[in-house]
């Protein structure tokens, strides 16, 4: 009995997320969400959970994670087009490619902290962006993007519609679970200690540099899985996958949702994608203005993001329940 309870307590967030995610096709249309958007939300949940392992745990703000997202997307596209329409080898190759790039970029950028780290990551991502636009045009399709992929297959299953959704949702659940496991492990503890006091950590016998690189590479791998799934979802890769706009969007999603909570950034992603695609229908281009206002409101009044609001509401309920 005791074990069951602790299993539930440890995995409460994952189980709730699984319930919400897997039932999404049932309730999402009720709030005007169209099918396809739910898949995109799942894919970005993966991206954002991984990003939080870097930003939320170690406190390192990368403005270049589109690089890994984009590299994985191009690799997946090229694999589907030239090698096999099976998505499994394509995703594996994409993740390996992005991981190798992440190790190199990580080694070079993690020598610096704060704003210098952010700018360096941005610079690297922009480098890849311009490479995709010019040097590697024959491979990437440059301005027009990479097209002409066959319908992706998961062995005998055509990856279209709800097949893509459930595949993405299961990946998101698994990767969220993995992130939670990392958070509870000694590795997660050390990563969070980097954000608290890196000097003390080094003087406590921990090689902070290696843990930072590990967090950076893991978050890049999450971004790569998301990038690969984007191509499975829609067989097209545009150069904007690698652009700074994509990197910035991830940061905004994290901040709105609540940095360092793992769940928060996923909520941030769902909120922004829903807002961008559903609510903006009435607002047109003005929605960016509203988004800007929401972002400012969150940063000024709720620096912990949506998750802080949730915590405050919880606390209020508990205190009123106590006083009664």
């Amino acid at each position, binding site marked *: 009995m005791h074990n069951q309870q602790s299993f539930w307590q*440890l995995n409460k967030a994952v189980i709730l997320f699984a319930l919400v995610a897997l039932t999404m096709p049932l309730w999402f249309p009720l709030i005007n969400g169209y099918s396809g958007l739910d898949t995109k939300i799942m894919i970005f949940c993966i991206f954002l959970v991984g990003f939080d392992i870097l930003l939320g745990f170690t406190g390192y703000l990368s403005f270049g994670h589109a690089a890994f997202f984009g590299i994985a997307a191009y690799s997946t596209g090229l694999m589907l087009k030239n090698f096999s329409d099976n998505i499994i080898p394509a995703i594996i190759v994409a993740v390996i490619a992005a991981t190798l790039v992440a190790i190199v970029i990580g080694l070079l950028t993690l020598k610096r902290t704060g704003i210098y780290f952010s700018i360096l990551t941005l610079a690297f991502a922009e480098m890849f962006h311009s490479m995709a636009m010019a040097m590697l045009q024959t491979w990437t399709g440059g301005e027009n993007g990479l097209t002409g992929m066959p319908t992706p297959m998961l062995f005998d299953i055509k990856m279209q519609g709800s097949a893509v959704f459930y595949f993405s949702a299961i990946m998101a659940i698994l990767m969220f679970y993995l992130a939670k496991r990392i958070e509870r*492990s000694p590795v997660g*503890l050390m990563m969070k200690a980097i954000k*608290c006091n890196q000097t003390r950590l*080094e003087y*406590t*016998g*921990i*090689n902070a540099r290696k843990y930072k690189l590990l967090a950076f590479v893991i978050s890049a791998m999450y971004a790569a899985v998301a990038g690969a799934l984007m191509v499975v979802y829609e067989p097209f890769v545009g150069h904007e996958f690698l652009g700074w706009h994509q990197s910035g969007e991830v940061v905004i999603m994290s901040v709105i949702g609540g940095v360092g909570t793992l769940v928060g950034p996923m909520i941030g992603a769902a909120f922004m994608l829903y807002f961008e695609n559903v609510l903006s229908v009435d607002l047109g281009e003005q929605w960016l203005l509203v988004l800007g206002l929401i972002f400012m409101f969150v940063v000024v009044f709720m620096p912990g993001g949506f998750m802080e609001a949730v915590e405050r509401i919880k606390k209020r309920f508990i205190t009123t329940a106590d006083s009664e």
Partner: protein
Amino acid sequence: MPILDIHQVSLSFGGLKALQNVNLKIEQGTTHALIGPNGAGKSTLLNVLTGMLKPDDGSVMFDGKPLLDVDSYDINQLGIAKVFQTPAIFPEMTVLQNVTIPVFAARDGSFRLNMLEGYSKQRPLIEFAEEQICELGLDKHMHTIAGSLSRGDKRRLEMAICLANKPRLLLLDEPTAGMARHETEKTIELLQGMKDGITKVIVEHDMNVVFSLAEKISVLSQGQIIAEGSPDEIKGHPKVIEAYLGEAQV
């Protein structure tokens, strides 16, 4: 054989000679104080010992192993811990998490890829961390966020962090700086209480602290060791009086 052997260490910042041919031997199990006027090079010497600064010349041996060109975390893994002037802790974590980190550092070394192990499930390790916390009198604050502790308790927590991976040499950089009288007394008691085998090097301005703890004292002035001896020898040493009071009269 001394546990720490500093031999002919020199270090300059630009034109300033912060350390000049410093020779110092610290005997196993003793408490050795470093005193001297401001800017004498005491903290610089500690920073050399922790790997933060690389000297231009000389050698440092700890327990027969060379320390120079070793990274800070590996120096700690060899058994040297440092207590900072302002308590260096992990402020956003609980007291227990603070002390869990060195316990895992002692078990796993400076890096280990154990991403799937739940750290709070490692009962013997967590219990050891809890014992350390209790020993330093922080039992009431086990799950308190460390940043909200009083200054004195932060200092205790820092000591707990340092002691949890069982160091053989503890470096203390003005452990009582900025403390009220009664907190200073408590810190002295704390340091006296852990005399079992841990060698201590203490940099301190408060002579009361120095004379109640140290068995041996070295006096630094302008980057050089000008005197060394027992507390009684140092008290009346003419060079020491000169270094502290006399420069204007020379």
